[in-house]
């Protein structure tokens, strides 16, 4: 990448970051990210209160229970709702939001290849999504067993804690990369990207109940394969779930990155043909 090109992408990135990060329009996304952290914080404070009343008491559950509880929060909240809708809000608006605010021509009147505009916007959206969700996931994970005191520290340092945290962080990053690419493309292709997002959400939601072959046509299947702790499906849903072997790491990570790249490439081509027609 030559210096001029770097400056151009940097120009788009900085402007987008300024508009997207801590913008008033995105308040609900920050709430989505802060929500689980606030609940876990509340849980910690309650357990601390209990421990003060009865020294040596570490709650009515075990450290393993907290680990499974976090896996449940991660799968059911972060992946299926928080990161999904957060990415929809961030990436879906990168182009569609500009169309609605009638500002897209600002970029289209610069000597930037449209693919570069797509790349700059995507990188800015990704930076915001990663900061929000990685911080939320890491904060929640580190806090969920904090009330166990030294046992939790031991779990993190010498047990599987840090490895689990690393896996959750990786899955979070891949989710942002994958869903980000999907919603950026939806924002370019569709007048109402949220309709297409709803379709994707339903598809991802019914994933556990789909036959093996269809399961693999989703982002959530691959992300779930990388999660370090399996979440048991409660009855009566467990009888409807079809078991499928998880995808191996060496397929999942490069595969998701490749799919994201293909979607971005297609978004770049679509952006090349995008016209400024604010009134339509």
């Amino acid at each position, binding site marked *: 990448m030559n210096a001029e090109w770097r400056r151009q992408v940097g120009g788009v990135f900085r*402007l987008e970051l300024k*508009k997207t990060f801590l913008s008033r329009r995105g308040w609900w996304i920050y709430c989505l990210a802060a929500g689980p952290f606030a609940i876990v914080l509340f849980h910690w404070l309650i357990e601390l209160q209990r421990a003060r009343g009865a020294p040596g008491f570490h709650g009515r559950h075990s450290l393993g229970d907290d680990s499974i509880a976090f896996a449940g929060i991660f799968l059911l909240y972060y992946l299926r709702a928080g990161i999904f809708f957060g990415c929809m809000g961030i990436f879906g608006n990168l182009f569609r939001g500009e169309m609605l*605010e009638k500002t897209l021509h*600002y970029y289209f009147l*610069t*000597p*930037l290849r449209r693919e570069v505009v797509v790349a700059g916007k995507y990188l800015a959206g990704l930076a915001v999504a990663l900061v929000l969700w990685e911080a939320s996931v890491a904060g929640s994970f580190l806090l969920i067993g904090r009330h166990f005191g030294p046992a939790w520290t031991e779990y993190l340092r010498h047990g599987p804690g840090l490895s689990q945290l690393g896996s959750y962080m990786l899955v979070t990053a891949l989710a942002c990369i994958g869903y980000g690419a999907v919603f950026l493309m939806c924002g370019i292709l569709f007048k109402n990207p949220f309709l297409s997002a709803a379709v994707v959400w339903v598809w991802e939601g019914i994933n556990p109940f789909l036959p093996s072959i269809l399961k693999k046509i989703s982002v959530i299947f691959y992300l779930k394969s990388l999660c370090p702790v399996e979440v048991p499906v409660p009855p009566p849903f467990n009888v409807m779930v079809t078991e499928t072997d998880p995808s191996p790491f060496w397929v999942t990570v490069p595969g998701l990155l490749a799919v994201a790249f293909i979607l971005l490439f297609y978004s770049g081509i679509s952006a090349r043909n995008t016209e400024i027609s604010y009134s339509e």
Partner: protein
Amino acid sequence: MNPAAQTETSLVTFTNVSRFYGEVLGINNVSLSIPPGITSLVGPNGSGKTTLMNLMTGLIRPTQGEIRVLGIPPDRPEQLCRVIGYCAQFDAFPKGITGYQFLYSFLRMHGYTDAECDRRTRASLELVGLTAAAGRPVAAYSKGMRQRVKLAQATAHDPRVIVLDEPLNGLDPLARSEAIAIFRQWGAEGRHVIVSSHILHEVDQISDQVILLSQGYVVAEGQIQGVRSEVKEQPMQIQVRCDRPALLASRLFQQDHVVEAKLSPDGRGLLLRTRDADGFYLLLNRVILESGLEVEQVAPADDDVNSVYQYLIGGGEGSTV
């Protein structure tokens, strides 16, 4: 480079260009060649002025036909936007951005270094008189200030083709005259300055050539006097100021081509309408020689944009704002 190619790289050309919005006509079968200087696009609302500008800046694509801006097709923004600047009618700006940031970010996306972006931003803001307001959010600017910052954006990268859609809208009289002076300067420097405006007397002041549009078609193009002389069905109006206008009027009425002659109330002027301006000038010379008529002034009275507009397009919406 051969002469034909050299010519092409100095012109903005449209070849059989049409643009439809679904079934609605934007422009139809337009062929144009716009040379350097100030060119005004004139026409009522919906005549296709903005469509033409959006096409040449690559914001929309033609349904058919070919466009070249100094030889560059508009679907190559990486080349086109280095030579073209567009002050669009869209009155929207990225959220939360100041006037300085608006220009700086735009220049940054052109690939300039930090120092160069800063220098150009400051120079452009000074040119449009917004230095003091540079740190304020654009959203807090008045309509006139927003118009000025858009003008600065269109020219901050020193383009050879400057496209201005209704650039005088919202400007106060002083700012208007300053803007017109800047357009003239750019035109004199050999740039293409393509302006659309409803304000016909201002178009008349600044234009080297005009393009008249109506309902998506180019009705006429060229220098305004040339366009006027092509309108044969409307007799030319000529104003004469002399010591004996009645004598001149009596001689004129012996000619077939003179349609009408009106004496002015002060008794020293004559407004006549003729189908043969050249014939009139020959006759006037003869009358001067034969009768010693003292002529103060002879001037065409309807070779301005307004008159040509009225003749070709009519007095529809937006004709004489």
